[in-house]
């Protein structure tokens, strides 16, 4: 009998404790906010804890290549764990006017293909570190949905190949990427 009443008492007590918690929360300020990206794009980066304007300092979202700076070293292609970067280069002719990347590195390769398949990208940022001219970067842009998967192939190269492309071997990633 004692246990019986105790059960009732404990149930009632703990239920009212819980009700008290939820009741308090009816009057607490909301943790969420209205998503107002249409009116105020900056609001996407609002955070409860991180100071304003600092959340996206190191954001790793959409990849971008400043193709003018690319020297065609293929470091990023090598390091990519999912093989989503494809680069084809041609040697620039000796008689062509020398061009330089914005940090002064001489560009000796003509980048005729610089494709990034964003549908494969795993946003690990490993491609960014080895780049000697900081031309491949990750931007804080994250709204880039497409209606067709093919449109996720970003083709950055601006120059057309002068010679017919040499046989380029791409082994499919052995484990399927």
């Amino acid at each position, binding site marked *: 009998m004692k246990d019986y009443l105790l059960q009732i008492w404990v*149930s009632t007590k703990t239920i009212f404790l819980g009700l008290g918690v939820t009741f308090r929360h009816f009057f607490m300020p909301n943790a969420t906010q209205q998503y107002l990206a249409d009116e105020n794009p900056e609001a996407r980066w609002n955070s409860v804890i991180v100071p304003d304007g600092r959340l996206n300092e190191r954001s790793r979202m959409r990849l971008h290549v400043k193709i003018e700076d690319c020297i065609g070293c293929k470091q990023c292609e090598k390091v*990519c764990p*999912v093989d989503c970067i494809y680069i084809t280069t041609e040697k620039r002719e000796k008689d062509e006017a020398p061009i330089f990347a914005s940090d002064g590195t001489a560009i000796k390769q003509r980048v005729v293909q610089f494709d990034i398949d964003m549908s494969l990208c795993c946003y690990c940022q490993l491609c960014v570190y080895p780049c000697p001219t900081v031309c491949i970067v*990750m931007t804080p842009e994250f709204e880039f949905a497409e209606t067709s998967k093919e449109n996720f192939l970003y083709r950055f190269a601006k120059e057309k190949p002068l010679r017919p492309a040499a046989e380029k071997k791409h082994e499919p990633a052995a484990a399927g990427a």
Partner: protein
Amino acid sequence: MASQRVYKDLEPDTAYAFKPEDLEDDEMILNMGPQHPSTHGVLRIELKTDGEIVKDARPHLGYLHRNFEKHAENIDYQGVIPFTDRMDYVASMANSLTYAVAVEKLMAIEVGERVKSIRVLVSELQRIASHLLAIGTYGLDIGAFTPFLHCFREREKILDLFEWLCGARLLYNYNWVGGVSHDLPDGWTEKARQFLGEFAPVIEELDDLLSHNKIFTDRTATVGIIPPDLAVAYALSGPNLRGSGIKWDVRKEDPYCGYEKYDFEIPVGQGRYGPIGSCWDRYYVRVEEMRQSVRILHQALDKLPAEGDVHEKVPKRIKPNPGEAYARTETPRGELAFYIVSDGGLIPYRVKGRSPCFVSMSLFHEIARGEMIADIIAIIGSLDIVLGEIDR
């Protein structure tokens, strides 16, 4: 083209372990998952039920199998880290930390003090975030929706801190071999302290709302009991082992990242509302662990060396000597270990992940037998599995 293909005999005969002809009159095969709200991913469990009672259970894995280990044999050491992140995708920091520790063991790299402190900071924050998810979804499994979102509110702050730190919210690629990818930004430590201050009362509130609720304790404290000897025989680890009353924590027993310098307790299951090793014990060990993590974080923030290059020990080229190493750390789900074999080349010869969820799930059929359908959900939730890590 795809529409012309004939997908024939897609379900092999072995898809069901229980055969209809073996069933008794009152028994029924209930297929739980792979798409089910409470199997925490794409786990499929075949239940042999008699009314509400589960006579036998058989988990079927592989719906999320990506063969991480084959991936790892085809990319360089650094490239494996994004894949380890995707094993236990709610505690990525802990996974990549384990891998980094394993490769460092293989290459005999000793990282700097600041890197160690940062690693402790992120892995304890990740532990809190992961436990918040585990506790919240456990409430959801039992039917309480509100604690789930209260937990997510706090978890969100941790994810914001991580995003500020390394730019990603879920899959960080943060712990590198020999260092970490980014140093702490200015003001991060103050905000981390602010978070810890806001977080401590939330645990107390959670106790009121969920932990000690009579309905919740009734649902969880008498089901899914793992006796200590069974837990050891099945090599359980982490909160699942401690829930059975065994005081064992890799952070104390085999310290890494300088955990020996921190002062914290190992919470174990007390059997407060029922037998030791019940679902409630495992659940409450997680709650207590969050309190301990807060303690560790305060100490780590105090001890954080002001100076230090986080990339100091990062090797230019990761090329270990031939050999093998086995390193384990205490992730939120238990002891994650990586067994790495190197043949002296630039890519690992073999990477085997010993995932704690895989091990806990192998015990499942033992404790599921004889419970009710609703308890199956409670047991799965209390084991805190992540299918990304089970299936790898």
